[in-house]
């Protein structure tokens, strides 16, 4: 919470002379320390790297194997008869492509809706003081904790009675239940970093409150908004439970789509399933690589300083 960057620096300076006096031996110890920490760091990276990345290797290796070759025990750790057939089979699968398009549509709309709504709400929470603000804020934050599975039971009934099952609207609305609270939280954090003085200056310059928000604050907060949107997109892209229950084949997204495509016979279709999994992951991974910086910035903006 308290900003610590300013106070310790003088302390360092104060200690400087003593370090100099200690002379070479200290420097040697520091160097030894450095070496030791390097070794520790590399071993941590290697061990955790094995845990983190070997499964990815196995995903890739299985996806490149022929259907029969995976039914061997013990399995060959380095597959020899490589094939791309599993991937070409996917390209011919129209249904999977349809699932992917549905995923893109639903996750994108969810992201935009969540960010727009959360921008106004987060701005209100961050820059204004009024009665009930804090209770509202807490309520929004706490709503992340509300059990999705329980929510789903009634959402299903509500959408059913309005004839809205199997529509993009139902999916977007249900995804919003878990993306919006987090977006509000992230964006409030972003707006907290915009100095009040800027708003005052804008106000003195005669900018209306709407204009201040839209043309002065929003551009400043753009990276944060992108981050929030990306986060909402990834969560929407990855959702399983809502899409499984609320949508049919026509409107279903990839995760439940994969389940219904492969789970009936997944025992035999491991290579294909792994290939499909890999392909499904590509869009998010690519999106992520480009926007990683924003995402990390946005997620940590509200929390790191507190």
């Amino acid at each position, binding site marked *: 919470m308290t900003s610590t960057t300013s106070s*310790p620096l003088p302390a360092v300076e104060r*200690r400087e002379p003593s*370090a100099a006096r200690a002379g070479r031996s200290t420097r040697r110890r520091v160097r030894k*320390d450095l070496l030791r*920490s390097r070794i*520790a*760091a*590399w071993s*941590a*990276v290697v061990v*955790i*790297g094995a*845990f*983190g*990345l070997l499964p990815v290797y*196995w*995903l890739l290796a299985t996806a490149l194997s022929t259907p029969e070759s995976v039914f061997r*025990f013990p*399995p060959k*750790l380095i597959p020899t008869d490589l094939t791309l057939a599993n991937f070409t089979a996917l390209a011919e699968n129209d249904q999977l492509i349809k699932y992917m398009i549905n995923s893109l549509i639903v996750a994108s709309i969810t992201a935009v809706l969540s960010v*727009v*709504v959360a921008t*106004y*709400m987060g701005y*209100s929470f961050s820059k204004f003081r*009024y*009665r009930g*603000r804090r209770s509202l804020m807490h309520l929004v*934050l*706490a*709503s992340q*904790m509300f*059990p999705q*599975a*329980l*929510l789903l*039971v*009634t959402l*299903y009934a*509500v959408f059913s009675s309005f004839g809205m099952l199997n529509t993009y609207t139902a999916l977007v609305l249900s995804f919003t*239940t878990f993306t*919006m609270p987090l977006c509000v939280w992230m964006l409030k954090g972003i707006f907290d970093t915009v100095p009040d003085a800027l*708003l005052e200056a804008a*106000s003195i310059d005669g900018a*209306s*409150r709407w204009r201040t928000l839209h043309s002065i604050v929003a551009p400043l907060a753009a990276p944060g908004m992108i981050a929030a949107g990306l986060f909402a997109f990834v969560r929407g892209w990855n959702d*399983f439970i809502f899409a499984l*229950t609320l949508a049919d084949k026509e409107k279903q997204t990839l*995760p439940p789509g*994969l389940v219904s495509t*492969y789970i009936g016979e997944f025992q035999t279709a491991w290579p294909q399933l792994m290939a499909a*999994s890999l392909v*499904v*992951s590509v869009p998010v*991974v690519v999106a*992520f690589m480009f926007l990683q910086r924003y995402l990390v910035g946005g*997620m*940590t903006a509200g929390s*790191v300083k*507190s």
Partner: protein
Amino acid sequence: MSTAAPRQKEPPPRRRTEGRLSNGAFAVLLTAPGLALFAAIIFYPLLSAVFTGFFKQDLRLPGREFVGLDNFAYWLDGDFLTILKQTLVFTVGATLVPFVIGFALALALNTGLRGSGFLRGLFLFPWVIPGVVVSFLWMWIFNANYGVLNGVLVKSGLIDESVAWLGQPGTAMLAVIVTKTWASFPWMMVMLLAGLQTVPKELHEAASMDGAGAVRRFFAVTWPQVRGVASIVLLLEFIWNFQHFDTIYVLTGGGPAGTTETFATAVYQTAFNGFDIGRATALGGLWMLLLLLLVAAYLRITERKGDA
């Protein structure tokens, strides 16, 4: 609604509707779309669900019958404690293990290893890919008959015979936690790394020159700096895991013999496989009650910190 002093200065009266709204009213107006959405898709369904818990109702059939506390009694006399215990084991395990791993990795990457930016990106892969894919992948790794884990362990002589990881009570929960850990440690690593990067290097050097060992340096310098991020990361992950569904549903479906059943899978399966939405929502209601305690604790903590 608009009495407390706004931080913004009251702007001079100006064009059209602008002047007619007080700052407070403006602020409330900003929250209106969000609140409407919240009311419609979160609060109403939740309240309605809690209400449904008092009825006997079949998802497939119209009509319902008031049964008082029967549905609640069904759970409290039955599996409630088991499910609670399993949910807690999963939640605590799937929160702490990735936290420790993520923290260790963040510390390692923060020492300025060559290529740490690239490594950070690489490690994010498991977090970004869809949860269902994660479950598929581990389901294949843990496969009882052809899985690579059994293959490696048997080959290296650590076990004599393949283990049905997902088919045995003890190992199934472990497998589920490992899977969830794999999917969430990268996110924790990124957050903690961002926190670590705010710690000035000079602090470390100074402490090192003072002769502080690595462990002491960690607790004296590093930990106080990242405590804020750490607690938020832990809290969020705890909340998410408490209602996590995908991994368990795909990997074990709550089995074997219900030993990986959590609130999320039990509510879902009661409602959508058993079609008994009275009992499903009753269990959900009990779950909510527990969550409210958590929320209260959360509010108390954040209040004491006096957040802005």
